[in-house]
């Protein structure tokens, strides 16, 4: 599993959670970062959040009583995964540009 590529959804979720956000915040942030291209759907995001919590890459913050919305944040393990992925993406980009002349 060490060399597996992250899905685009997971990549943007992890990137968004470098600061604490609730579900809708992640959707808005991913859309903003990608210039409107990535539109995470609620069902897909919900499933991904649960899988990422299970893996220990993100965690839910203790619930604030004043708001019912749960916030999530990236963990140290998640940050490591993210840097590895960025390295992998750099390789893809480098090879693509070197061969096609970007």
């Amino acid at each position, binding site marked *: 599993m060490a060399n597996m590529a992250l899905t*685009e959804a997971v990549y943007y979720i992890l990137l968004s959670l470098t600061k604490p956000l609730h*579900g809708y915040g992640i959707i808005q942030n991913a859309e903003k970062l990608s210039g409107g291209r990535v*539109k995470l*759907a*609620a*069902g*897909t995001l*919900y*499933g991904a959040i649960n899988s990422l919590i299970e893996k220990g890459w993100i965690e839910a913050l203790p619930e604030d009583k004043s708001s019912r919305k749960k916030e999530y944040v990236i963990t140290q393990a998640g940050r490591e995964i993210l840097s590895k992925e960025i390295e992998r993406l750099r390789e893809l980009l480098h090879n693509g540009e070197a061969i096609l002349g970007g």
Partner: protein
Amino acid sequence: MRKVIHKCFFVWNFDKEEKWLCEMAAKGFVLVGVGFCRYEFEKCDPGEYDVRLQLLNNRPNHPESQHYISFVEETGAEHVGSYCKWVYFRKKTSEGAFELFSDFESRIKQLNRIILMIIFLVAANLYIGMYNLFLLFFYNSELNSFGFVNLALGLIGSFGIWKLLKKRKKLKNDNQIFE
């Protein structure tokens, strides 16, 4: 003014059901309630809403389902109603595109959930049907001629599974190339 329409969809035609509900919304009738083969609509501006539906893992009143429903509602959608484990959402088109799933993987998972549910029903019906027909033929028990009904239901359900597997295969093929 409310309008009630009785209409039945096979479970494996959930996408046709969703399309019909969107067409109703486009015509100015948005879904406000659901029941067994029963849809309740309210007048809206034509094209004001988009409607989506999905099968949950648990009953709608289960805490996990409640958590999921409020998660979806946070994204600007409204929970219209539920029937069995099916939930119906609507969202104003002015608030942007509305989808519940944005990648192949989660769509495949959703199909798997539906397939599993039908397999269970089909297996139960085929079993009861064959058992009753066995009694009918070997013991001449007339009470058990209902076996034909179960058998027919089981066969119709098998056809549904086949249709869903075809849909899943297409998604899986796409998923090998795209994300």
